[in-house]
């Protein structure tokens, strides 16, 4: 620990440090690259090549020993009735080879630590089951004690590995030294498994139990971590190997590489089919999430359901303060509930995509499901784990602004273009403001280096009956904006698992609490900061206070936000308990109860200091807003599971259960205006005028389901899901809907004909699913006519008002989802690849159909007869390019290619003029932009008649002139990660990429360039200057009016959209793991030092704008550099 303290203290706060770090990282990369080239793959072969007819068994074993070094042991005389072997294999893995050659022999094998021991196969007659009801007197087979040890591939003990007896409730965890003990019967099979390792099965016979007890050592080999990792599904887990559905898993190791505040940033680019867009770089901001283009005709892309530890979680926007210019909601894009879970506390994220995986969530799962599992107790020696990192964030990608000479030159040109002369009011060019003065206003407003700190500490361990884990976290995130705000949060959590000695009863409890305090002022300076002239005196005095008498009119209204006061305290409680009861070995009864409570108290204050001191109405305009919300979610999910191996080869599992959700959102808002003193602003109720609003929104959901899963001989998998859902969104008669899915998979590499002929094919699975999922993504009670209480009073009376048009005939939406996929592993999983194709058709979609406002409202909710189809391809390619003792290089690549098509136009009304039959619903119809006229410098457009006009002469454009069509949805997106390890060093380099279009900088400019005191992007340097100039930037002009009109038309034309395709170095993580020797000297279990960077480099042609959030007036995603240490002791 003493030593470690030295490592914790890199001087991150010193600004130059991180350029140094970047240099170090670059250098290290160079060195590593050089190292790659020198290292060759080596390794001991564990495969066998042999061909011959009628070979003697002994000779075959000799060959095995020769080629693999594995020794074969057997009892004397065992080989007496062995049959001769005919075989022709090339480079076949040892176990497969043994399976093949011993298939028809009267004995079976067990591999233990480089030793293959043979034993006689049990006689079929011995295991004939006595009928229990009749013959109760039959003696039960004797119980033998079994003591063993589980080791990893290097011979280190594995603590916490699971050892279970197949088809029974008996299971234990390995303790210190990897030891375990069990009581077993002959004929039983023991399964030994550990995350990241291939599970091993050992069949126990009367013969081998005795010998095993002398030295039962199981050495687990690293599995194909992709295939054998656990996948969390609705109410249960499986491995990817045996899953017929489409689930993508993100592990805590992947998350740990990303120094981020919202875990979705770490998932970005790693999960095919899940599109993630960060809407603002501001800490606490919102993320747009979408699974496979799930879209609604009227409300656009729909976010997936997010479940944290079994509880429905508020992952969408939060009911933050939304009052006009003081709105936190607008600033953060509504925020995100996931900001209140520390990413370091997350064990895994499973993204459920197809009907087979999601059907069980019924209506709520129609748009995809994201399951988040937090870190839980694990058995083993008590371990303290500490992870600390610290770093800085700076502003990301933004277009460059004009400097003073450029600005002054262009302003003068604008005045000249309009035939005007520089006037008294043109302070920036008439000499009033010095033309040699230059201020980068953006640097002043957005140039801060925000400190980020994160510390996690956990302590856990336990024995076979009880395991525990406690953890604490601290996180502090600074602001790049000009004020003193900071976002600090701290969390505590515990997890406890205990079970009775007979394993019949198990109790799991887990809880976490996070408290966050955010004092960042909810005002985005990124658009305001671009507006001031670079030679403007600015709104500040030398002391940094606001100079209200400046002759610079623009910025006092921006700068005054510095004096606002903000205090947002959010607390998040997640608690869940699971009760498991196994009355008989094959039946499990489980009840899961989860509770989530997120509360926020936010004070937003506008003191007199935000107004000019001369303003007579300053005191009367002071405001204080208190916004309080409380979102509670309770989930109860009892279910029963029947799990049995039938006819020896058939694993059958049947689940029946129900799920009940209750969510309530409370919001209370007090807005006071006109305070006698700024000191009273902390009490919004002390204002001269007070407006109170209160809301309580309940939500209930109820569903019942049944799941049948059958795995035949680890080869054929069939999965049936059925669900009956009730929803309050429909009238009583239409409330219940039945949904279901079927999923099937065939692991064809388990077939002998594949095993024998395609030895290079390690794994092959074909899978498919088909199902119907309901949807009810509309507000509740639309089938009833509702009156709403209005805010405020009129002549002392509260008013009531009807809320909308009523449609009593609403029905469930139908989502028909189909998918087929193939998963292939080659050359002992050196290459693993996966391809999926999905075909989702949405019909009967619940939409707000636009109606004429003469009806009183703008839309009517109904089941649209439009049909939308989402199809797409998703590919994963993971390769282990180089694997050797000291050096490994692996690559993980994924890409999603979504497509959307409107198969049937809504007939009831022209829903949206942008809809075209056969085209994506995400498209826009636009005017045809004809570029900047090289003769006049004006933007020009081509109308429906094909005639091109300069803007000033352009006749009024109508719908018919929208001849162009642009699809705004991404064409493809994905990511590629290269991981390198060299001895104790490892390096991960992750790129993410998206191909799409976005509104370009010109279309996003608030104003065209040319007016007094408004700066612009350096792209204005390419403006049209004289007849004959060919450029895409129009001439500069001081004519506000014409420019505004022109820009308005431009924004509705295809000229406003350009490619926002980008590739981004999303994450770079460089780690150093201490060697075992060093750890031993330091008396540590583990120690890792790391440097990480987030959003380091963006390659795009999007004109300097950030191609992810696509918004020029919002802080782009930040660039973050951190360094840290992870210690285990």
């Amino acid at each position, binding site marked *: 620990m003493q030593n470690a303290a030295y490592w914790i203290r890199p001087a991150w706060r010193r600004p130059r440090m991180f350029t140094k770090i970047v240099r170090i990282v670059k250098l290290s990369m160079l060195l590593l690259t050089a190292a790659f080239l020198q290292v060759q793959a080596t390794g001991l072969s564990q495969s066998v090549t042999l061909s011959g007819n009628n070979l003697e068994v002994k000779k075959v074993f000799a060959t095995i020993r020769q080629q693999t070094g594995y020794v074969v042991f057997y009892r004397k005389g065992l080989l007496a009735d062995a049959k001769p072997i005919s075989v022709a294999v090339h480079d076949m893995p040892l176990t497969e080879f043994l399976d093949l050659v011993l298939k028809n022999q009267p004995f079976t094998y067990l591999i233990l630590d480089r030793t293959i021991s043979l034993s006689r196969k049990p006689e079929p007659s011995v295991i004939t089951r006595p009928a229990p009801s009749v013959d109760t007197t039959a003696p039960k087979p004797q119980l033998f004690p079994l003591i063993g040890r589980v080791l990893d591939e290097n011979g280190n003990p594995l603590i916490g590995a699971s050892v279970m007896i197949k088809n029974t409730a008996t299971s234990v965890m390995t303790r210190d030294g990897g030891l375990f003990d069990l009581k077993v019967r002959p004929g039983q099979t023991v399964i030994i498994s550990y995350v990241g390792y291939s599970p091993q099965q050992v069949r126990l016979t009367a013969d081998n139990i005795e010998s095993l007890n002398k030295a039962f050592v199981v050495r687990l080999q690293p599995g194909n971590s992709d295939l054998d990792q656990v996948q969390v599904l609705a109410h249960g887990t499986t491995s990817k190997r045996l899953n017929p559905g489409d689930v993508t898993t993100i592990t805590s190791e992947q998350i740990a590489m990303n120094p981020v505040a919202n875990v979705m940033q770490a998932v970005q680019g790693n999960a095919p089919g899940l599109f993630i867009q960060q809407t603002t770089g501001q800490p606490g901001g919102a993320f747009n999430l979408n699974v496979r283009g799930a879209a609604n005709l009227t409300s656009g892309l729909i976010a997936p359901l997010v479940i944290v530890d079994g509880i429905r979680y508020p992952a969408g926007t939060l009911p933050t303060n939304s009052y*006009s210019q003081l709105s936190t909601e607008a600033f953060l894009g509504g925020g995100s509930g996931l900001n209140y879970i520390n990413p370091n506390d997350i064990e895994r994220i499973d993204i459920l995509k197809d009907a087979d995986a999601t059907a069980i969530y019924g209506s709520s799962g129609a748009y995809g499901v994201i399951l988040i599992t937090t870190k839980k107790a694990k058995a083993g020696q008590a371990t303290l784990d500490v992870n600390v990192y610290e770093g800085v964030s700076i502003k990301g990608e933004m277009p460059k602004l004009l400097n003073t000479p450029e600005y002054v030159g262009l302003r003068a040109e604008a005045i000249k273009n309009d035939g005007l002369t520089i006037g008294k009011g043109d302070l920036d060019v008439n000499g009033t403001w010095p033309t040699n003065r230059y201020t980068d206003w953006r640097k002043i407003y957005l140039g801060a280096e925000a400190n980020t700190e994160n510390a996690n500490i956990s302590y856990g361990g336990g024995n076979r009956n009880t395991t525990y884990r406690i953890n604490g976290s601290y996180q502090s995130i600074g602001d790049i904006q000009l004020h003193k705000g900071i976002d600090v949060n701290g969390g505590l959590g515990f997890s406890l698992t205990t079970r009775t000695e007979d394993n019949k009863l198990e109790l799991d409890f887990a809880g976490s609490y996070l408290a966050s305090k955010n004092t960042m002022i909810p005002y985005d300076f990124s658009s305001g900061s671009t507006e001031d002239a670079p030679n403007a005196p600015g709104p500040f005095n030398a002391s940094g206070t606001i100079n209200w008498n400046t002759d610079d009119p623009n910025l006092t209204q921006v700068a005054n936000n510095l004096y606002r006061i903000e205090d947002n305290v959010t607390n998040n409680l997640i608690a869940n308990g699971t009760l498991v009861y196994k009355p008989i070995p094959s039946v499990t009864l489980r009840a899961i109860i989860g509770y989530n409570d997120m509360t926020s108290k936010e004070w937003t204050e506008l003191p007199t200091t935000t107004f000019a001191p001369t*303003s007579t109405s*300053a005191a009367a305009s002071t405001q204080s807003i208190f916004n309080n919300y409380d979102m509670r979610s309770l989930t109860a999910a009892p279910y*029963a599971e029947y799990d049995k191996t039938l006819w020896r080869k058939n694993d059958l599992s*049947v689940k029946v259960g129900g799920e009940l959700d209750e969510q309530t959102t409370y919001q209370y808002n007090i807005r006071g205006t006109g305070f006698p003193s700024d000191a009273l602003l902390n009490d919004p109720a002390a204002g001269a005028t007070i407006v109170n609003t209160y809301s309580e929104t309940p939500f209930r959901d109820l569903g019942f389901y049944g799941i049948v899963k059958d795995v035949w001989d680890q080869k054929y998998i069939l999965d049936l899901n059925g669900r009956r859902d009730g929803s309050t969104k429909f009238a009583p008669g239409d409330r219940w809907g039945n949904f279901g899915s079927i999923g099937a998979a065939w692991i064809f590499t388990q077939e002998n004909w594949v095993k024998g002929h395609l030895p290079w094919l390690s794994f092959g699975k074909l899978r498919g699913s088909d199902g119907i999922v309901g949807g009810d993504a509309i507000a509740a009670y639309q089938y009833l006519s509702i009156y709403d209480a209005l805010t405020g009073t*009129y002549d002392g009376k509260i008013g009531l008002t009807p809320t909308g048009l009523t449609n009593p005939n609403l029905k469930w939406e139908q989502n028909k989802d189909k998918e087929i996929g193939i998963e292939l592993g080659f050359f002992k999983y050196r290459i693993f690849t996966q391809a999926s194709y999905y075909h989702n058709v949405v019909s009967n979609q619940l939409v707000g159909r*636009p109606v004429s406002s003469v009806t009183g409202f703008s839309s009517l909710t109904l089941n649209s007869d439009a049909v939308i189809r989402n199809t797409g391809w998703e590919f994963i390619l993971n390769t282990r390019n180089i694997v050797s003792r000291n050096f490994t290089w692996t690559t993980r690549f994924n890409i999603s290619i979504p497509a959307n098509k409107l198969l049937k136009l809504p007939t009831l009304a022209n829903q949206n003029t942008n809809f075209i039959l056969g085209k994506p619903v995400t498209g826009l119809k636009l005017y045809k932009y004809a570029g900047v006229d090289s003769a006049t410098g004006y933007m020009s457009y081509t109308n429906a008649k094909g005639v091109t006009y300069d803007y000033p002469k352009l006749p009024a454009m109508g719908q018919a002139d929208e001849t162009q069509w642009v699809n705004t949805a991404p064409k493809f997106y994905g990511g590629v990660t290269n991981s390198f390890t060299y001895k104790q060093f490892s390096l991960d380099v992750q790129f993410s990429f998206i191909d799409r279009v976005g509104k370009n900088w010109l279309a996003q400019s608030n104003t065209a360039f040319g007016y007094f005191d408004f700066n612009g992007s350096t792209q204005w340097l390419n403006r049209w200057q004289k007849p004959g100039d060919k450029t895409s930037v129009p001439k500069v002009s001081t004519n506000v*009016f014409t420019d505004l009109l022109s820009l308005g038309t431009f924004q509705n034309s295809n000229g406003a959209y350009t490619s926002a395709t980008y590739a981004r170095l999303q994450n770079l993580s460089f780690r150093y793991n201490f060697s075992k020797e060093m750890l031993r000297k330091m008396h540590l279990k583990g120690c890792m030092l790391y440097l990480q960077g987030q959003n380091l480099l963006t390659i795009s042609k999007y004109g300097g704008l950030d191609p992810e959030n696509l918004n020029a007036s919002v802080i782009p995603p930040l660039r973050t550099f951190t360094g840290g240490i992870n210690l285990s002791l």
Partner: protein
Amino acid sequence: MKKIFNQYFSTRMLAVCALLLPAMGCNKFLDQPLPSGEITQANAYVSDNSISAVVTGNFMNMVNEGFFNGGDNDLGMYADEIQYYNPGSPTSVLFLYYLNELVVNDANFWTPMYNQIYGVNAALAGIQGATATLYYKNQWLGESYFNRAVVYFYLTNLYGPVPMALTTDYAVTNVLSRAPQTQVYQQVVSDLQQARSLLNYSYTNAYGGTTGDRVRPDRYSATAMLAKVYLYEQQWDSAEIMADSVIANTSTYALQPLSSVFTANGKETIWSIEIPVTNTTAPQQYLNYIGSMPTPIPAGKTPNNYSVFCLMDTALVNTFEPGDGRLTTWVHKDSITGSPGSTFYSPYKYNTLSTTAQLPIVLRLGELYLIRAEARAEQGNIAGAQSDLNAVRTRAGLPNTTAADQASLLAAIMHERRVELFTENGNRFFDLKRWGTIDSVMTTYDAIKGSGAKWSDYKQLLPLPSNDLQQDANLTQNTGYSVQ
């Protein structure tokens, strides 16, 4: 197979299912409560109290959005009362002033006004269908008819022929075509006549009791509104009679000194509206023009420094006769010395941040005098018209009118309306249209505006929102506007 089934499913699994069964009859669980603050329609028409809340809600909607939410400012800018002021102005201001276009949202008035009509139609059906004993049914019905008449009056004056939605059934209202303006006026008159017969002779509050507040209409409010409607319909005799009956009630109504004309619930007020404390803290008429601007404006500053984007039109300022008290009392003047030196005028009828000291007036006695003056002049009653005109002039501190024949008297009334009713509820814009002078006035005004402003005759009517034209094939756009 059967054996296994029997063994495991029939006995044990059924037992498990039995455990779950109590949860299966959970239909009741799905009857979740409504969100707070919401009630079903059935609960909205059960008593005088709840019906009063619905009727009050309709007044609140009328005030919160649509014509009475900044319509006077918009139309002042559209016509020749308010001047765009600064490059920093919002885009909508620029378009409104220069091009007479409601660019930002062409549904600014139309959409919220039809929403208000829906509310009134629902209330009328609900009250008439209510089964409970109602003690103030006439008041609720009368107020609702009045409300609907006011909305349709402004709607038809803004858009010309408009669809007559008299039901809440969207199957009917979503396919309506535009009714001729005469039919709209017929409905307005019929609603106001109904209101006149149903409402009390004195102001009543939301509980049916008498009150000093003048924010809910009484029988005189309906009568005054009728006078205005008849004037617009050029039914001079009816307009005169209606105006007569209001002016004659001298115990309730009397011309007030200039400084207290807009005082809340004063004797000048026939019907004012109240701003529910939700979005604004003062009458919009104050916030639009003066807002947080200090008096005087410090040197080197302009109104734009205080987010004031429009000022009173110079031509309007110049049209006041010398000695007109309204120019000193109802207009705010701010002179700035230094560079650039200038004088700014702003409407100042509403001059306080207080929400209760002044209430936005829709119908006031001064206007009734001018209505009667015009109706009398049109009928050749010179002396009567002069007397009404002089009543208004005397209050403004001006001598009696010198106009003695019908033509000059009408011209004098037109002038008087301009300086008396400036920036009040679009009176100027509607008057220019009524008198047929709008084209000449606005064409002349184009030259003052500059920057390519060009008035066209078709702009007398506003464009229908493009969305509605798409959704309802029976609707047609006003001439001159592109069919989007």
